[in-house]
């Protein structure tokens, strides 16, 4: 990205970023976000992230974007994984071990059914 030299440049980048987000939601792409703050990592979030990425590779899953974020705030429920599919509301899962992460990928991301016993109510 070229340097921002003026207010107009900043505005343009902002609009492009917002547009990119909209495209993600509208296309029905699934967004899987893993909280990778230090508390998440202390609770094992790295293994959870690995499990998700592994699953995508071995099962050749497409249409999924995996991102990370900082500490979400429910520290005692770490590791936390959030799933947004298209325009549906965000579903937050708590205490996600690698096994549960695979279930989430299989049952929620691929088959559309939330794995309710691990959902953290909003």
């Amino acid at each position, binding site marked *: 990205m070229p340097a921002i030299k003026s207010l107009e440049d900043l505005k343009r980048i902002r609009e492009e970023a917002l547009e990119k987000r909209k495209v993600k939601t509208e296309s029905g792409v699934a967004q899987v976000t893993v909280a990778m703050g*230090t*508390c998440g*990592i*202390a*609770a094992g979030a790295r293994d959870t992230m690995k499990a998700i990425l592994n699953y995508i590779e071995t099962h050749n899953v497409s249409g999924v974007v995996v991102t990370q974020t900082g500490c979400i705030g429910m*520290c*005692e429920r*770490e590791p936390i994984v959030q799933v947004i599919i298209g325009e549906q509301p965000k579903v937050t899962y708590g205490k996600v071990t690698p096994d549960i992460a695979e279930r989430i990928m299989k049952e929620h991301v691929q088959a559309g059914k939330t794995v309710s016993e691990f959902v953290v109510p909003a």
Partner: protein
Amino acid sequence: MSSETVEREISTIVSKAIEKHGAHRDALIPILGEVNKVLGYIPAAALREVRKRLHHPEDRVFVSESQLYSLASFYSMFSTQPRGRHVVQFCESAPCHVQGGRELIHALQDALELKPGETSADGKWSLMMTSCLGVCAVGPVILIDEDIYGNLTPEQLPMIFAKYD
């Protein structure tokens, strides 16, 4: 290893550290930190080498060994004594203490057969206390090298220790 080889090794490590952080006075702490990271501690030979490289009285930059030693001994993340290959740091803060930390520290000492501050005879483990690691909601917490483990119970310790050789 001959003492010549050790000296050469220390010289290379110090050079790399100075190259990375700069050859000026306010880079002393990052430089010592780099040496500590690579060797596990800061040997006296390293302090001598740093002084040699950074002391330039002609430019009015004065660095003495005692100054360097005072830095190395002040900051708890630096050690002037050799440490084990793997350093187990146990969070001693209040939130961890009330969430099972009291029991865990005894279990740690039993499992490693070490008291805080000690290194095992085979050079594998060192046990240290550390100040709050900032992950209190998943306490009690330990740090092994750079790996952090939370929600700990004594039962998990053998499995975690087995990961390190």
